[in-house]
């Protein structure tokens, strides 16, 4: 009866109204997972449309400058729409189409997932509506227009804290009221089963490529794979095919905002947030002592989520992956650092992984190599970073 568990985490804690649809989705996904036609169609989309495989780039100047391990950057920022989000979205929208759906809905924080969903919907001729916290529509006004340009309707969510978690709530409500023709393209490895498994499968292409590429370039596995984590889709995508290789350290970098000792952070695991049940899953969640979900904060709207996906919670429990806090200041420094030293402007989300890599690489020797996932490009963040540094720049 208990489907979709990662240790004790995961599950299907959703209102009855959605249950039948979730069962249908699970069954349908299990079918296409092993269907060669579907997988081939998806691979063609990923290669011909999204531009996969993405490069594994050796950051020579950065490695030399830090004087430690050789650093490789997995360039998910070079994908179409500028982030790893397209991997999951192409899979889910194709799946939705095969299920006979004509409309997709999605939540978005920074707008990356919303833009990717709107893109895939345009490509496959689906109606598309995006739910975005009102705060985020202001922080990321350019992405709102981008989604509209792609034919999507964007709803500003005004309930609760008006950010990502409330956008998820509102998309769930919308789905519950209209399931017949609509699929909810969840953007991360969270929510009720089958989403954490399905989104992981679609993102696992990242580590599949990483592994083949690093073996070709180095003839050995990396010491560590480092990725940023909000809900955790790019992180699980980067980790997945290395989970069995126990000598490869898996490190998730959480948004620690102003610091884990303040209230202004979104670092769920590294702040020792308690277990809970929320958004359809059992996992770790930032919350108060009475179980009210905390209004979290990070400079990065994409990491601004009060929980982590259930598979990450499990990897933490069994000690297979490590989760570390990275503050706004550290991430912004890394944003500048990578831009200047390698000519690559990383997303502020990915900058959290870069920040940890800068510290970590220096503890290793030149014989070692590590891989950092650059989950997205930073063009969207330029104005916000300028403002963070006190420059009055608006888009």
């Amino acid at each position, binding site marked *: 009866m*208990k489907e979709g568990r990662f240790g004790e985490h995961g599950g299907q804690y*959703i209102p009855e*109204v959605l249950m*039948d649809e979730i069962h249908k989705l699970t069954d349908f996904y299990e079918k296409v997972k092993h269907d060669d036609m579907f997988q081939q169609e998806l691979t063609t989309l990923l290669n011909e449309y999204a531009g996969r495989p993405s490069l594994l780039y050796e950051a020579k100047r950065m490695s030399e400058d830090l004087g430690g391990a050789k650093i490789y950057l997995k360039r998910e920022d070079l994908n179409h729409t500028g982030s790893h989000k397209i991997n999951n979205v192409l899979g889910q929208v194709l799946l939705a189409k095969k299920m006979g759906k004509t409309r997709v809905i999605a939540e978005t924080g920074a707008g990356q997932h919303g833009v990717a969903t709107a893109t895939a919907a345009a490509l496959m001729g689906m109606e598309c509506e995006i739910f975005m916290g009102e705060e985020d529509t202001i922080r990321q006004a350019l992405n709102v227009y981008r989604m509209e340009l792609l034919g999507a309707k964007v709803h500003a969510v005004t309930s609760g804290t008006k950010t990502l978690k409330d956008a998820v*709530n509102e998309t769930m409500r919308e789905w519950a009221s209209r*399931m017949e023709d609509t699929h909810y393209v969840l953007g991360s490895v969270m929510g009720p089963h089958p989403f954490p498994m399905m989104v992981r499968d679609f993102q696992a292409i990242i580590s599949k490529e990483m592994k083949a590429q690093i073996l070709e370039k180095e003839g050995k596995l990396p010491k560590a794979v480092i990725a940023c984590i909000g809900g955790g889709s790019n992180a699980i995508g980067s980790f997945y095919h290395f989970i069995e290789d126990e000598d490869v350290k898996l490190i998730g970098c959480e948004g620690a905002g102003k610091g884990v000792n303040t209230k202004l952070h979104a670092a769920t695991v590294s702040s020792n947030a308690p277990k809970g*049940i929320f958004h359809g899953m059992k996992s770790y969640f930032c919350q108060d002592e009475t179980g009210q979900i905390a209004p979290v904060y990070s400079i990065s709207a994409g990491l601004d989520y009060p929980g982590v996906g259930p598979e990450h919670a499990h990897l933490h429990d069994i000690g297979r992956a490590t989760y570390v806090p990275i503050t706004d200041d550290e991430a912004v420094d890394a944003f500048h650092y990578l831009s200047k030293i390698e000519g690559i402007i990383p997303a502020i989300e990915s900058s959290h992984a870069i920040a940890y890599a800068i510290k970590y690489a220096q503890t290793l020797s030149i014989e070692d190599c590590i891989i950092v996932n650059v989950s997205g490009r930073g063009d969207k963040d330029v104005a916000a970073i300028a403002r963070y540094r006190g420059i009055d720049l608006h888009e």
Partner: protein
Amino acid sequence: MNKITNALQSKNSIVGYITGGDGGIQASVNHILALSEAGASMVIIGVPFSDPVAEGPVIQKASMRALDSGITTKDMFVIVNEVRKQSKIPLILQTYANPVYIYGYDAFFKQCQESGVDGLIIPDIPFEECDEISLYCKQYDVTQIFMVSSSSDKRITDIVSKASGCLYVVGHDISSTIQQVREVSEIPVIIGYNDQNQVSSNHVNGIVIDTPIVEICEKHEKDMDKQIFAYIQKRVVSK
């Protein structure tokens, strides 16, 4: 017979709903007593939660009001304790999984029993996950009220087989869902206020009057108890 089942024997009963602690603990106690005196057969107390995914905008706002004024899950038991001094009306807590999980299942259910809570509605603990709490329900004699929707379809039989108290029917096609339930069980059925036009009242045991009552509380006027009493009494009389 189960106290909830017993209270819902007649057709078209009124089930009152308030958001616990909206306007203060004493206000909630007074509102529940007003509902009871006006002829409601049962009262649902909505436990304030930061993210009430299954609720509409009016109740979401009430939940936020209560939380902002410092109300916690613990206060629900204070309310129930007070009501129990004056009324035996069946009381249901409608909450979400997380506040109960964090309270600790054992402590929460024990408190339910001690204060006099008869049943629980937890929208995000569906049939598939009910093992999460079923042992505690049994141990402390608290009924989990299951929801059934028009999309439940083939699962209705399974859900009904585990259900006690009553079933809460929601969704787009209440009428045929109730029919499906009736084919396998005589369990009382309650439906939401917004769904009452979908089905002849002769087929339902209780209608949950939630939004109209919470709207009265939202106005926060002096004679709220009287307004609630009048609103419910009018419906009871016109039955």
